[in-house]
């Protein structure tokens, strides 16, 4: 049985995303980590069939949970819920472009911050404003992560030959990723 080349693409993309997210410094101006792992997971949720997408989501969530000592399936659970939402939005308007990715990851990063804090019990009514502030900052960081993450994964697909041209129009080769 030949190995799917998506395996190596996803390994590489998640590895780079995990390293970047771990090493990215937290600055007082934006005290949140860019969600590169979430961005990569959501890109593959949009562009791959369900077995590949779910595996990428699980690995991305596992990397986040294991690195930070979060409760088991905290981030994985969130990404699975996000997968359902993303597939629903894809039927309506969502595509795997950089712009859509940036906005999508921004929203998901804010929701993930609230979800994670709920899972670990950091928060409570006395810290409500701080929690909402954290979600706001995470959205800003998610804009950056979504744009960079979707751009990087798209580039990786093009460079590795995962995209194939489907039509030529006005001298431009239009492509789509393997579905």
């Amino acid at each position: 049985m030949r190995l799917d080349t998506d395996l190596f693409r996803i390994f590489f993309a998640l590895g780079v995303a995990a390293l970047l997210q771990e090493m990215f410094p937290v600055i007082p101006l934006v005290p949140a980590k860019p969600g590169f792992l979430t961005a990569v997971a959501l890109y593959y949720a949009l562009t791959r069939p369900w077995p590949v997408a779910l595996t990428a989501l699980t690995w991305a969530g596992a990397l986040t949970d294991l690195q930070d000592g979060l409760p088991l399936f905290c981030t994985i659970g969130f990404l699975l819920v996000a997968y359902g939402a993303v597939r629903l939005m894809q039927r309506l308007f969502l595509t795997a472009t950089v712009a859509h990715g940036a906005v999508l990851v921004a929203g998901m990063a804010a929701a993930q911050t609230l979800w994670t804090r709920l899972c670990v019990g950091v928060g409570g009514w006395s810290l409500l404003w701080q929690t909402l502030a954290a979600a706001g900052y995470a959205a800003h960081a998610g804009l950056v992560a979504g744009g960079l993450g979707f751009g990087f994964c798209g580039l990786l697909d093009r460079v590795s030959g995962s995209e194939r041209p489907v039509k030529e129009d006005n001298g431009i080769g239009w492509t789509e990723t393997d579905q």
Partner: protein
Amino acid sequence: MKQTKLWVGLLAVTLAALVFWRTGAHDFVREALYPYQKACVWFERAVWLRARAMFSRSRLAARNAMLERDVARLRMVADDVEALEAETRRLRALLDFVPPVPCRWLAAPILSRGGTSAVWQQVRLGKGSLHGVRKGAPVVVPDGVVGRVMDVSLHTSDVMLITDPNSRVACELETPGEGVGVVRGILYGGGSVPAAGPELTLLYVVEPLRLRYLARDFEPSPHTRVVTSGLGQTFPKGLTVGFLLDSWIEPNALSREAAVMPAVDFAALDEVFVLSPGGTHAP
């Protein structure tokens, strides 16, 4: 179909590893990233800082002169300290006091801050169990207490900072006053703002830490140094934690609470020292 089976199989293996081999998976992920994190830290120190220095020579000359003066002053202080240590040993022997347990200082570089999700106030160090780091070991810098090791793998360790809301440090005031005795309390990490109404605050702006359960009737003066009390066997006695800003009676009227600004600038940390019992300094 075969590819679908492959991916479903990989998913099942991942879930099984997470459920049945969580600790191993946790260490595996940390160790897998460690070489790349070390390479990034090496690049920053060996290449980036030197490149930056090339464009700031004038500032370097002034800083060099200041550091030379500091070294000369510290040499004199070190000579005095050696004499004081010898006298202390002699006096302890005469009075039959039990000497404090000597600590080993292990220097460790900081690989990353905040983890992957920035939920915990923590830093990751580039030293682990192979270098003698143990869970629960105190972490300090010359300025004061940084935190405590909460997780260790072969080459890395995670340190919970004293600014984390889950952090607790047994402290006392350095020189409370004549006839007062020792004033002790528990230092709580930042997070909850003890104000009448909620305020929108930046998470990583260091909020004053809270020193709780102080004696109600003694009002400490601002800028009093707060040090570790040595109780609980976690931190050695006498390490600087911070400086007192203000104090007030707690709502329960049974004790006093104080705001403490940490002595350490956590944003500027590059290297820390992990304390372990026995021996002297280690590279």
